[in-house]
């Protein structure tokens, strides 16, 4: 089964891929790691994003092995620098 997730890019990562979001189709069930691998291989410039970036699923920090479902919003986050 295949599903679509919305991937969002921020700050330097957005500059690397030249966009702020991308809808990505991938085989389900999937993890954050699967999304990152898909981004790195299919999105132009995505190979410059680290292999294990910080990530969030549906507005929450998520580990590399966290599950991703169809319709989820997955964000790849450069090292945070708030405050």
């Amino acid at each position, binding site marked *: 089964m295949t599903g679509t997730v919305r991937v*969002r890019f*921020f700050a*330097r990562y957005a500059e690397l891929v030249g966009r702020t979001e991308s809808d990505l189709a991938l085989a389900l069930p999937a993890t954050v790691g699967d999304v990152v691998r898909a981004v790195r291989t299919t999105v132009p410039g995505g190979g410059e994003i680290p292999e294990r970036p910080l990530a969030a699923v549906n*507005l*929450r*920090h998520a580990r590399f092995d966290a599950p991703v479902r169809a319709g989820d919003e997955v964000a790849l986050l*450069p090292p*945070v*620098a*708030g405050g």
Partner: protein
Amino acid sequence: MSYLTKDPILVGPLLAAVSAPERGGTALFLGSVRSGAGEDVTGIEYSGYEDMVEAEFGRIVAEAGERWRGARVEVRHRLGLVPVGEASIAVAAAAPHRAAAFDACRYVIEEVKKRLPIWKKEFHADGTTVWVDPSGKPQAAPR
């Protein structure tokens, strides 16, 4: 109500929002754009994953309220270009006694530094910009 603002952060309303007769101690933290001796930073542009910032701020504030019962916390983060000397973040915490006010305020700013999806682009006097990587690797931003 939003935890984010594009305008200068006003301290007065933030202090007023946490104050109450039963809370005798109030701690405030202001984080400002810094330019040390020999540095040529003119400002920092803050950008964020805004929906997640609101959610994460809500979680951090709720955690502080559970950990320090009777404490009330308010926080604002500024986005956009912030000139040197102006505050990018303000955290106000009031509690019946001072220890809880200090500790809750400190908790919020430490969690913000670890968890809040906000990024900084430093603007230098020579016109260059650099993404700030808190892990210690500044990287030139493509213009």
